[in-house]
């Protein structure tokens, strides 16, 4: 699972993380993995719901020192 791109969305409040992620994933090819860093707690459930509705897969998520990390594979 190697990310082809990392998106820093730390410090951004809803809705900006999803807006940026959506834009970033549009530039990737199907099967590519995008790594995302965020600090907005709300991003967690929104990201999972957004990925599902967009046909992408949330491969993994972690939380360390208040930074949430996500890996999403483009569908």
């Amino acid at each position, binding site marked *: 699972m190697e990310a082809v791109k990392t998106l820093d969305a730390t410090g951004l*409040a*809803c*809705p*900006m993380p*999803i*807006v940026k992620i*959506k834009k970033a994933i549009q530039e990737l090819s199907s099967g590519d993995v995008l790594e995302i860093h965020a600090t907005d*707690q*709300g991003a967690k*459930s*929104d990201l999972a*719901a*957004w990925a599902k*509705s967009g046909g992408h897969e949330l491969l993994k998520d972690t939380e360390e020192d208040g930074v949430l990390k996500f890996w999403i594979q483009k569908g």
Partner: protein
Amino acid sequence: MTVKTITTGELAKKVVNHEETLILDVRNTDEFDDWKIEGGKVKVFNEPYFNLLDGIESVERDLQKDQEVIVVCAKGGSSQMVGELLEEAGYSDVYSLEGGMKAWSEHLEPTKVADLNGGGSLYQFVRLGKGCLSYFIESDGEAAVIDANRMTEIYETFAKEKGVNIKHLIDTHLHADHISGGRQLAENAKGTYYLPPKDATDVTFDHTALQEGRDIVVGNTRVKVQPIYSPGHTLGSTSLIIDDQYLLTGDILFIESIGRPDLAGKAEDWVGDLRETLYKRYKELSNDLVVLPAHYSFAKELGKGGKVSARLGDLYQKNSGLQVDDEGEFRKMVTDNLPPQPNAYDKIRHTNMGKVNPDEEERREMEIGPNRCAVHG
């Protein structure tokens, strides 16, 4: 283009005054299904904001261009953005709820229940976003607050407006669904904080025992607060009879439902207490007492001006939780119908005991979501 905003106070007035209110909730669907704005003539529908980024077609069939619509999200950021998208698409009467559901969860709407015979008044504070009810008694320059919520400044401002000093803070039980403001209010006002002894065994701070036989007098010597031991939601749960007319039932008896016995112990252990309180102790009280609970669960329980109350005798006719004659059946009904437990309930209990001390932001997060203190038969 900036979208017009509506405050939680303005929205609360629309809800309790039963005005037609259309809400577009743009949080993700799981959060919406878990907890949403309800009450009065509110019509609410859900479309997550991330489905609207490329176009708003999916909401167009539910919305007329000139219709008033209030957009709501978790904290107020996404609703602002969706509001702008709607305006760009030609919608002319769009509002964004300031502070989102987080702020909605914290709004308290005061409504006057009655003037008291002994002089003074009784108010109910309705927390529309969470279904919590707290009470404010004022008499002769003094006030008591019962089952106070965390947002202490709301009660303090109210006391100031009424020209009274808060003296007594009473919690009918150790709360598991919200952080009590009782301790903080008592500290600020140098007042007395009362807790039932059986709920306070692990409490780390000074307090006074709330006990049957030890009445509390608010201001005027004729306004009496009479504790009645009524276990079942917690071991210590204590009801209060105010001015010989009003029965504050805490989380034992609601208008359409009854308390749940499992948030601080085991349902099987406490269901017997609940039965005893509802089917014996309360039955010995006057049928004419007006029940004022610490929660409501259904929007339809909100009466005129948002008030939640009912005559005790009427509840013995109508409340389904009070109609089960067979004890075994009652046990089964209660233990089989337990809803999911409230968000962070164990941590909330420990905060209310003074054992942990989360910061303000975490306290706010812990309380997000519905209260779920009732069992619906």
